[in-house]
């Protein structure tokens, strides 16, 4: 049953002209990479050009693009249900609300994963076009991209929850923008930054250390604790809200 709901969700979303939204962040990253010249360290043997460009791009990507785009998707998967009685129709089919919530959430996670992959493609394309000669730091980039994806789990759950509450398309988006902007401040706080859902993907993606001893600046156990804890909070909060909602 879960798989058929997921297929149905993908079908409904697929027809919502989403390719532009999926491609927005990778394309912007690509264009920014191409146009911004003059990384002083290019040619310097001590710093890997890929890594430098990657960390630079992470600033805009994980701080802005990723949380904003995932918020747009969360709004989209609820929008067509809010518009004309979709919830009513969907929930009178032989489905449980838990599985409907799970399907929408899974779809969002898959989309974020796709965007993360395209982001790597964008980074790689720019580097290739600019003729970086250093070795591609495969391990660091994969860990960073994968870690950023996992760190987005709580945020996506929260965004889905908000989108289910508010019928208008604009309100959850506005709230999302409102909370995305102060992320730049939040990440500067070592104490509070990790607890701010909008900052979690950035902290995961950006905190790759030069020294290879620990790939993640934030230790794994702390990440698991904070990301895992907030995931449980937002995921089950949203699910319980949806299960009890009178339609």
């Amino acid at each position, binding site marked *: 049953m879960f798989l058929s709901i997921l297929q149905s969700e993908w079908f409904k979303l697929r027809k919502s002209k989403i390719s532009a939204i999926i491609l927005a962040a990778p394309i912007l990253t690509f264009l920014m990479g191409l146009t911004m010249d003059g990384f002083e360290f290019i040619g310097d043997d001590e710093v890997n050009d890929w890594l430098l460009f990657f960390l630079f791009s992470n600033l805009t990507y994980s701080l802005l693009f990723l949380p904003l785009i995932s918020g747009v998707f969360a709004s989209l998967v609820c929008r*067509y249900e809010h518009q*004309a009685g*979709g919830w009513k129709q969907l929930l*009178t089919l*032989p489905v449980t609300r838990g599985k409907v919530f799970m399907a929408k959430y899974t779809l969002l996670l898959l989309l974020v994963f796709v965007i993360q992959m395209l982001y790597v493609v964008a980074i790689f394309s720019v580097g290739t076009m600019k003729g970086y000669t250093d070795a591609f730091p495969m391990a660091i980039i994969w860990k960073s991209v994968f870690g950023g994806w996992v760190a987005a789990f709580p945020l996506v759950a929260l965004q889905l929850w908000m989108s289910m509450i508010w019928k208008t398309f604009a309100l959850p988006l506005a709230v999302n923008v409102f909370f995305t902007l102060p992320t730049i401040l939040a990440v500067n706080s070592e104490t509070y930054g990790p607890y701010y859902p909008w900052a979690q993907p950035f902290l995961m993606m950006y905190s790759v250390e030069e020294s290879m001893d620990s790939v993640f600046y934030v230790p794994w156990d702390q990440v698991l604790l904070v990301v895992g804890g907030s995931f449980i909070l937002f995921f089950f909060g949203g699910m319980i809200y949806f299960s009890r909602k009178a339609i």
Partner: protein
Amino acid sequence: MEYIVETKKLTKRFGREYAVEDLHLKIPKGEIYGFLGPNGAGKTTTIRMLLGLMKPTAGSATIFKKDVQKEKIDVLRKVGSLVENPSYYPHLTANENLEALRKILNVPKKRISEVLEIVRLTEVANKRVKGFSLGMKQRLGIAASLLHEPKLLILDEPTNGLDPSGIIEMRHLIKRLPTEYQMTVLISSHLLSEIDQMATCVGIISKGKLIFQDSIEAMRKLAKQKIVLKVNNHENAWRALLAKGIKAENNQDAIFLHEESDDGVAEAVQTLVAEGYAVYRVEEEKRSLEDIFLQMTSEGNLK
């Protein structure tokens, strides 16, 4: 009798207000059950509880002898529904709308063209629903509810907002369902005339309470005609009729005859004339179903 839908003391309270109170619905198999009541009487709330969209405050609902709360999935597998305004995905075409549902219902693809044929939307199957008229959206909603060949169809105000030809079409369609597809239909409306033309059973709800539930014939019997006689000195005239063994009722300014046959009326008039009373008028007073409905619902309001 086998009941497809049965509710026991079904109650929904919003704050202090009872939207639905102690409802005992009984919907026999193969009937078209007209669920009648003024707007705000609790029809949609009842239907939402039947479909598990809302939890009852108290009481229970059973469909196909299964508790809606406990075995919701099993129940919904055999129920098709259309609640209030038609539900649809505006960005999808009629075909795609049904496809999104079909993926979940796991029925063969050919059902889509079949149900579109039933509601006569085949020609616009590939047009976006956004641009559909209300009637077309309503028909698409019916098509969606028929997709998985349900055994019970629940339609909440299905003719709301339709033009006259749309209403007639919808009526024909609904009437066909029990015989052609062995369905039981629950249809709600605030218009008696509509129920009168489709339903075989009626339940009337007013202020959250069920005030009548029986066959449509039983309801029609309540609408029997009455013969009214207007005479001079009707008090004495009435006594004269009674003395002759003619059953009658004395009202404020007229006599009501219990007998309705032509002979009976003729006999009563002849008696009165023979006794020397002046007969001013002999009238037939018809109580329409509408009158009965209004009377019932207003009595319900007084409580």
